[in-house]
């Protein structure tokens, strides 16, 4: 596959807020311009053929690449979805629509869903930018007025692209800019055969980004282990007692920061709200200031007890038998 010269990107917004687009501008290594100019020859040749927020043309002209991709005349292309996918059959009941992108030749509206159906048939890969495209996000929050859902629910969990690649979810509200840029570059290198496909977790999130919880990644976890909890906002200790959902959320922001190492939710003193998780923004993540279920801490204590016993035993062993390293 390494002979693929150009890889096109269609960035299609559904029920989106553009937050993931703005967040992509936060990416560092690589950043957006690196992705477009190609920072090494193996990653070069990526063209952004449709992105409504930053492209020069407007109206019909803007959609020419999308129309070509729908007809199979633009290949290969990566479809990046931003925003949730509504249930248009509900809007049709009263003769209307939830989300439209452009018109056909007769001036009839084309829904986002129609475009997604056609593009999914030809896409070389689908990357979901953010929690809305991945899992439905806030538009799908109870009572889900528009029947919003994520791409995996809409296209089917077993959906695979023409290249045999499953949907890759990069959740987060918004998705982390570095997560998106690293995943897109990874996808390009994988399509060209320079990397294996990324290992994904049960929710199709790349393990290299989402294997560990925010709690495991949090600089304050050490203080928690030492029994120090915050009881007021502003305190520098564990935020679990102030509503942090870090123990049940998979995210590396506490460790990585948000923009070039700056920021990070619980690590700065604000509770994690679980924005990378499929149930967000509903319970157990909301109310956001409510505390995460206590059961987690019981299991953690059991594991922690085992870990402490291991740490003590290793030291006794050194003293009794001698150090092997």
């Amino acid at each position, binding site marked *: 596959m390494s002979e693929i010269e150009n890889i096109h990107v269609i960035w299609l917004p559904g029920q989106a807020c553009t937050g993931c687009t703005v967040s992509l501008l936060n990416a560092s290594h690589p950043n957006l311009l690196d992705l477009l100019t190609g920072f090494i020859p193996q990653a070069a040749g990526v063209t952004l053929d449709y992105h409504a*927020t930053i492209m020069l043309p407007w*109206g019909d002209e803007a959609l020419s690449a999308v129309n070509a991709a729908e007809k199979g005349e633009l290949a290969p292309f990566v479809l990046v979805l931003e925003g949730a996918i509504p249930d248009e059959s509900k809007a049709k009941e009263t003769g209307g629509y939830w989300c439209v992108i452009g018109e056909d030749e007769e001036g009839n509206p084309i829904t986002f869903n129609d475009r997604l159906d056609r593009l999914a048939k030809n896409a070389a890969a689908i990357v979901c930018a953010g929690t809305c495209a991945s899992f439905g996000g806030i538009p799908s*929050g109870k009572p889900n007025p528009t029947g919003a859902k994520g791409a995996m629910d809409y296209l089917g969990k077993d959906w695979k692209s023409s290249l045999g690649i499953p949907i890759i979810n990069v959740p987060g509200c918004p998705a982390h800019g570095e997560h998106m840029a690293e995943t897109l570059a990874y996808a390009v290198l994988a399509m060209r055969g320079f990397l294996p496909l990324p290992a994904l977790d049960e929710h199709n999130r790349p393990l290299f980004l989402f294997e560990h919880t925010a709690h495991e990644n949090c600089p304050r976890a050490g203080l928690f282990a030492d029994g120090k909890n915050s009881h007021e906002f502003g305190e520098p200790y564990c935020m679990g007692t102030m509503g942090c959902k870090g123990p049940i959320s998979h995210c590396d922001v506490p460790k990585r920061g948000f923009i070039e190492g700056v920021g990070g939710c619980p690590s700065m003193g604000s509770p994690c709200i679980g924005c990378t998780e499929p149930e967000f923004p509903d319970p157990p993540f909301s109310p956001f200031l409510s505390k995460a279920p206590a059961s987690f801490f019981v299991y953690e204590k059991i594991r922690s007890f085992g870990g402490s016993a291991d740490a003590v035993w290793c030291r006794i062993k050194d003293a009794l038998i001698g150090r092997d390293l």
Partner: protein
Amino acid sequence: MVEKKITIEPVTRIEGHLGIHATADMDGKKYTDARSFGTMFRGWEIILQDREPADAIWITQRVCGVCPTPHGIAAAMTVDMAYQAPPPPMGIAVRNLIQGAEQLYDSPLGCLILEGPDYSQAVVEKSNPDWWDAAKITESPKTEFHGFATIADIMTALNPISGALWQKSLAIGKVGRKMAALLGAKHPHVNTLVPGGVAKTLTPTDLEQYAAMLAQHVAFAKEFIPVMDDLLDFVLSMGYSECGARENNMVSFGGYDDPTAYNTNYAEMGDWAKKRSVSPGVIIDGKLKTQDLIEINVGVQEMVESSYFDDWEDVRVNEDPLGNPLTKYHPWNKYTKPHPGAYAKWDGKYSWGTSVRWLDWKGNSELNTVELGPIARMWATAIGKLVPESTGTSLKFALPKATIIPYRNAEAMEFEWKVPEKVNTVERIRARAYYHAYSAYVLYLTVLAGLGLVKDGKAKIWNKYSKAKNGLGVGMHEAMRGGVAHWCIMKDGKIENYQIMAPSTWNSGPKLGESDLGPYEAAVIGSPISEVGEITGLDVVRTIRSFDPCLGCSIQVYSGDKKIVHIPEI
């Protein structure tokens, strides 16, 4: 008359899903009719119902990822009031710093990445060749400050991706969001705003780090404003002053609260809002009608005659907490019933947007069609005489010395934004640029005030509160695109009604009755057709983009009758 109807869908380089249907008079070379229509709906206010009010601080930011922070702040103010949880002064100072950081990123994004390419070589050389010929031989009056010799050089720098100004905006914008992340944990969608203040462990060097990044924006402003002045003055000189013009009717809610004046008392809102660094005000025909934020609040009306919603009958609250009369169209009373309808039905319901007007309830009882935006708040502040920088006809301030490599102008620089004769496409963009410099100035003073609070031992940024069960809240201030306002009715600790009104709700809304057009629509009508060749709607999109549309914001939600709008998950 040779008429041509064009539909531009999607309007790109904006936030969200928007279409414009316009009628062009090809003989008279101008636009004679226009309809603005939002093409996406999600249902935020319905999703907010029955949740804990504090959750609105996180959820409402997600209506828009371009301008989330103002929603977070408006929600925090609304919930502060409903809970009666007043933050300490440092909490307000830090909220201002987070809010302002976003303005610093959002202004160059609007001017140079969203709107700028409409004046780039790539567009102008093809569509306005006469402008391009003139630009090549027009020297930039302020070359010494920005380094571009001719106007054509500035236009070339605005080409997407390859242009120097386009790229610079990308880089400096990131610094703005990084400042927001420093105190807000992340951006977009900051995470540290809570009722009663800010959830951030303030470190001894936070303000210092913030100031170092602010200095980059100070240095940037000293190139950015001169370059925008040169470009925009040139565009005006090409006979463009009628493009996007409409009457000088505007509203500003004011912004950047005084840390020692802000409180959670509705009765005092009119007083503390007057102490903001950006002044509130209703401007009719260029003149101030009122500066009282309570009077402004009571006059807000939202109607759905041309929108995909059904009207409602009930009135929840007859008067505000001071006994001022509220109509059924005031947001506290809004019941919205989403009702998806046919596409492109220009004489009926044609948009997911709504028609918002300001009722002069104390005066002549007229419904005023007003626009919101940087030009409205700069105008209100300049003529308001509530801040020392206001001269009555201009806003005058100076940015301090900042030696930042590789920027050109280290020395302190004076800026003066003068009230223009009329609101039009060019002046909306100019006001957006100047608001960057004014924000940098306000934030510099805020950093100094913050250091003073720390020195005085007042570094506490959050006050403990006990949550009330019932309450009423409102939070009104300025987002980049204009005033943003939230309203909440809390019952038994849960949201009974939550309403979000963004600036683009006012600006992008559909017509009311036969002739009362929304601001986008009115601004397009009368605009000249400057482009040559096949008509693409260039002057229309320039006008629409001068408002810096944010459709995600304007069409979020609408709390409705749950029985009607509840759609079970499938």
